[in-house]
């Protein structure tokens, strides 16, 4: 690897807390929950009744901004990704279409498409069998937001097309680790000189009928009838499972001198990254957090920052018993020789679990923590699980110096990713 530095010059978000970065950040610091009763009209009998949805007015704003994409596809994941990409580029000071962008890449973590039951029901025979021949001859009737029309890679390539980003372009589909893996691969691509700028992050939405039963079938969804705003409670004894969110988070990762030459504002520096695999069970993390521990340790080694140098961890923090405990154990092992553990908080308590996209907004919050020395709280942590005994910044934000921070993402199946963000100090050669 070269000694090129990679800095964060732009951030863009679309979450249940809003469409503007500052709005998201202030609400996160204030501990505002984005979780509400599901608006999807057809979901009345769904066992899952709450999610962190992008509010209707915000969604309409996005559709107005990208009318042809809203009209032709209407897939929420793609629209969120386009919005966050646009905001991140603008935040970084780039115009929608400007300079030569042959060395600008796009890396996106993207989730499942939308599985529409109508795509089966419409082509049933009178004997209730699926008629593939008739289906084949009527493909124009396939639902416009259906997975059949929309590849996972569609958002990333659409972003490239919309903003004329002609460098490397890839989509990672590694469940909940996807966005952080995308950010990590983008960081390395800029660091080794494959690109000068990467727009990276994640986007997802599974708030649709099949998506709502997805995690119920797997036994990991929060189905309690508790007040929606109090439903997502990572590390709390009363937690009952993951609460879905939707949206996108994108970051502009830029080579330091490229950023300085154009006078860009720098939030922070990306200092390291690692990925590991549990190689344990498909349906559960390693109970001792083996893969997660290794991942954080390797990311620290990559960043050349000792554990004592880490002041904050944006946890994966899903509000599931298995993850919360395994992650806590892993953090304790990584930092066992430190005089105190770093502060830990879970963005999912605020914006829900954006699944494949979750690492996007969480990276943005991590970068802001490093830049502003403020840590958003883990909300709803009123009766901590005794086995989860770290400092999770319960309910109230905290001001403290954050020299460097980790952002963790652990995917279903056992894929782990950790990215390290640290304060930026201009090095020799910086103007």
């Amino acid at each position, binding site marked *: 690897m070269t000694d090129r530095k990679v800095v964060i010059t732009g951030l863009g978000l679309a979450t249940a807390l809003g469409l503007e970065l500052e709005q998201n950040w202030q609400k996160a610091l204030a501990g505002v929950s984005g979780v509400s009763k599901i608006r999807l009209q057809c979901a009345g009998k769904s066992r899952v009744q709450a999610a962190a949805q992008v509010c209707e007015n915000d969604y309409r704003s996005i559709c107005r901004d990208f009318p042809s994409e809203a009209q032709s596809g209407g897939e929420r994941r793609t629209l969120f990704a386009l919005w966050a990409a646009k905001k991140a580029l603008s935040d970084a000071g780039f115009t929608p279409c400007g300079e030569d962008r042959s060395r600008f890449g796009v890396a996106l973590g993207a989730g499942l498409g939308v599985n529409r039951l109508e795509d089966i029901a419409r082509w049933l025979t009178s004997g209730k069998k699926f008629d593939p021949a008739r289906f*084949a001859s009527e493909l124009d009737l396939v639902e416009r937001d259906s997975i059949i029309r929309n590849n996972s890679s569609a958002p990333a390539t659409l972003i490239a097309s919309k903003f004329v980003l002609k460098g490397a372009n890839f989509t990672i589909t590694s469940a909940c680790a996807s966005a952080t893996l995308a950010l990590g691969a983008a960081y390395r691509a800029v660091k080794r000189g494959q690109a000068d700028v990467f727009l990276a992050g994640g986007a997802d939405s599974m708030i649709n009928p099949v998506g709502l039963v997805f995690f119920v079938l797997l036994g990991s969804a929060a189905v309690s009838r508790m007040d929606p705003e109090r439903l997502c409670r990572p590390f709390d004894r009363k937690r009952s499972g993951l609460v879905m969110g939707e949206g996108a988070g994108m970051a502009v990762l830029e080579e330091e001198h490229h950023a300085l030459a154009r006078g860009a504002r720098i939030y922070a520096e990306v200092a390291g990254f690692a990925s590991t695999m549990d190689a344990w069970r498909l349906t559960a993390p390693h109970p001792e957090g083996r893969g997660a521990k290794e991942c954080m340790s390797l990311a620290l080694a990559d960043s050349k920052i000792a554990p004592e140098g880490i002041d904050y961890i944006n946890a994966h923090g899903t509000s599931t018993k298995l993850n919360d405990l395994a992650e806590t154990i892993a953090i304790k092992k990584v930092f066992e020789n430190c005089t105190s553990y770093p502060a830990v908080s879970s963005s999912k308590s605020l914006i829900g679990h954006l699944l494949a996209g979750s690492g996007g907004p969480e990276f943005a919050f991590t970068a802001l923590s490093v830049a502003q020395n403020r840590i958003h709280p883990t909300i709803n942590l009123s009766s901590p699980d005794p086995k989860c005994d770290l400092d999770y910044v319960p309910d109230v934000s905290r001001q403290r110096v954050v020299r460097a921070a980790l952002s963790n993402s652990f995917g279903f199946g056992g894929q782990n990713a950790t990215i390290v963000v640290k304060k930026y100090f201009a090095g020799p050669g910086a103007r």
Partner: protein
Amino acid sequence: MKTAGLPLFPVASDQVAITGLGAVCSLGNSLPEIVSSFLAGKSGAAEITGFDASGFGCLAAPVKNLAPFKTDISSQLALTMGKHLALLMSSVGEALRSASIGQGMFAPGDCAFFAGMGMVDYHVEDLLPAVVKSLHPDAGIDYDSFFLRGSQEIYPLWPLGMLNNVAFCQASIHFGLAGENAVFCPHADSGVRAVYEAACALREGRAKMALAGGIGEEITPLGLARAKLKNLLVPPPGNVAPPPFLGEAGAMLVLEPLSTAVERGAHIYARISGFGFSCERSEDGRFASTQAISSAMRAALSDAGISPEDIDLVMLATSHENELEAVLNLFDTGALPPVIVAASAAVGETLAAGPALSCALALSMPDRARLPEIFLAPSRKGASRDFTIGRLLLNGISCEGGCGAMIFEGANGP
């Protein structure tokens, strides 16, 4: 696109060797079978028999008679995960065997794993009982019925089959791969990205062995529908080649630092010498632009420090005219142009599996093989010649604009 930047790899870093190959596709369930069928000029294209595909009006190239594999998951879960898992297990297994890598030879954390994975689709029969229980008396779906009754007809672990990283994770568990990893998706460019990331992990010292490659898509009504809607099955203009068809496939490469591979006496199939990437859609939005394809290839050549004249063999990713045009423009060098092979004419559009499959096929061919004319690019018909693999360039192109190119030097090359 890399035109004026640093090399994709630091110049002084270690070289990466390919020491193992594994593949499965419609031409056979192991590389020797595939190579033999390919050189005999056979095509895997056939009528689709698994369901009534008459409405699609196309052929397909399915993988048949795949041997069962051992796994510690239930047979129902394995079935739910479909052919993705079977193709992955088969190609990883063969690649490790061909590299003579046994269990315990590398620590799990030293084994990186990167794959391009095609889209996973539900099997209609997995959701059909739920749909039938949820039908609205007039038309469409009654979602109250779906949530109350229909959803209970779905196998609880069905969601695992819908995550296209799950087969990948199961293979990691089975083969003990716990190092760096990622799943890219879903077209041929993702297969190139997987090899690139694996090569970087080795060069930059984060792994001692890496598996990289890709798995295509299963031939299902939904997969065929997507291919049609994405214009993947449109015949090239002027009928210069047969219409494209989808092909099932999986292919994996074992990568190791050249120095340690030599040290342990591994067979070296090739060295990896360059990569290039770009992205741009053509004006009609239906494929990568000719310019983007050309840029990726030029970047790979620059990364490898060689010229178009140095390439002996080009493996096309697709049968699309934009790719052929970009290749012919770049390699219109007079002297002795490279042989241009369109493996998709034999195995179909294998998407994420394509790059590793092309690589495995090319590197497994016997010395001085004579390639069948029917698999040569249209304008290269009649140009067949006995050849020995020297330098190989192969593409991975997405209909959505993503382009990747990589260059290998065969063990018998310069």
